[in-house]
């Protein structure tokens, strides 16, 4: 069974028969977490760094933003028995258009928002594939915690 994480969406699972996938990350970020002991995995696909730009949309769609989505992803995994100190953390996406600078570089800002939140909460990134000008599709298998990335124009690669 394949659980699909849409844009501004999140899924967690402890079902070893399942994989979780999100398609076509551009400047959005796909955050994948996995606890190998209890075999609990989760994935978040957020679009923007900061929910303060629109509180109403953040209330309706908390997974749209880094600051409102990331804590919810971790809490949902904890509810299935995952523990923070065992969590493997993988980050993909945050791509940018050529010459995209400063404030208009949403991809970089999306990544910085995550880094800031992780620094404050002492979360380490295990591996990442961020930035550049490519589109990425990410998948995790719950049984093994194996993560696969497909970049636009090439095949799926296990990381």
């Amino acid at each position, binding site marked *: 069974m394949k659980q699909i994480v*849409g*844009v*501004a969406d999140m899924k967690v699972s402890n079902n070893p028969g399942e994989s979780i996938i999100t*398609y*076509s*990350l*551009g*400047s*959005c970020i796909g955050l994948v977490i996995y606890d190998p002991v209890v075999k609990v995995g989760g994935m978040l696909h957020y*679009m*923007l760094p*900061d929910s303060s*730009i*629109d509180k109403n*949309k953040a209330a*309706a*769609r908390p997974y*749209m933003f880094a600051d409102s989505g990331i804590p919810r992803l971790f809490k949902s995994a904890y509810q299935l028995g995952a523990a923070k100190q065992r969590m493997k953390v993988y980050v993909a996406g945050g*791509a*940018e*258009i*050529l*010459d*995209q*600078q*400063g*404030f*208009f570089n*949403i*991809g970089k800002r999306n990544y910085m928002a995550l880094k800031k939140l992780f620094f404050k909460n002492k979360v380490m990134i295990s591996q990442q594939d961020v930035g550049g*000008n*490519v*589109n990425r599709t990410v998948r995790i298998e719950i049984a093994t915690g194996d993560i696969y990335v497909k970049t*636009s*124009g*090439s095949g799926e690669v296990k990381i």
Partner: protein
Amino acid sequence: MISLQDLVSEVKNLQPIPAVAGQLLAVADNPDSSMADIAQVIQYDPVITASVLRTCNSAYFGMKHPVESIKDAVNLLGIDQVIELALIKSGSRALGGSQKGYGLEEGDMWKYSVSSAILARQVAGRLALKGKNTIFTAALIKDMGKIVLEKYVSDAAHKISDLVENKHFSFQEAEKKALGIDHAELGALIAKMWKFSPRMVNIIRHHHLSDETKSTDQQIAAVYLADCLCMMLGGGVGSDGLAYRFKDQVMKDLGISAVDMSLIIAEFGINMQEVETLLQMA
């Protein structure tokens, strides 16, 4: 290099966008047109009319009584929505299918096109720009050059990816270098052959703003910005990825801030359901 003659004969073999689209734009963006004028243009094309009515009667709109004419549809949904539906229906056949040379599977380009058009509508609305239907349609059909160019891009894939990955070319610049023409120029040629207005031809030609002086043209700038936002959002993006140039100047010319840009993205996030629904019904 590809000969222009070859391209022209290939364009002649394409499934064209029905003429009703161009006629509809001419009346829809004319402030002197009445609703009856607009309805009449749509009714003139029975295939588009049937398709619009079928969509209006789908569960998505939840109508209590069947919608039996374009006039009914206008009364129930409003003129703007009926125009957009007719334009979307006009584009769906030409822009469906796969374009393997760009790494686009069946339906990817169509998804990207509809998403771009909806983003362009948001940009036009936020800035209260003139010619909103022209902007919407240009965003919808701007990549049609890819339909013809894809096989040449496929043949030149190594050269193009070398230029993009190692020599700092944008994908469009690499197309031009490797093939002598890029998808924006070819799209403009197709629009011209299909008798779209000079305005539409011009927007399509400049939709990546390779000529930066065009950013003062608000319709071009809006379509360009919507395309950038769509690339960043990622749905339906091919192997060209985000390898196009971002021009800060556009943001200044349009008077759009980074916060505006984020708000447009957030609004689109809420509208995603609409995109999916439109895609399924097209």
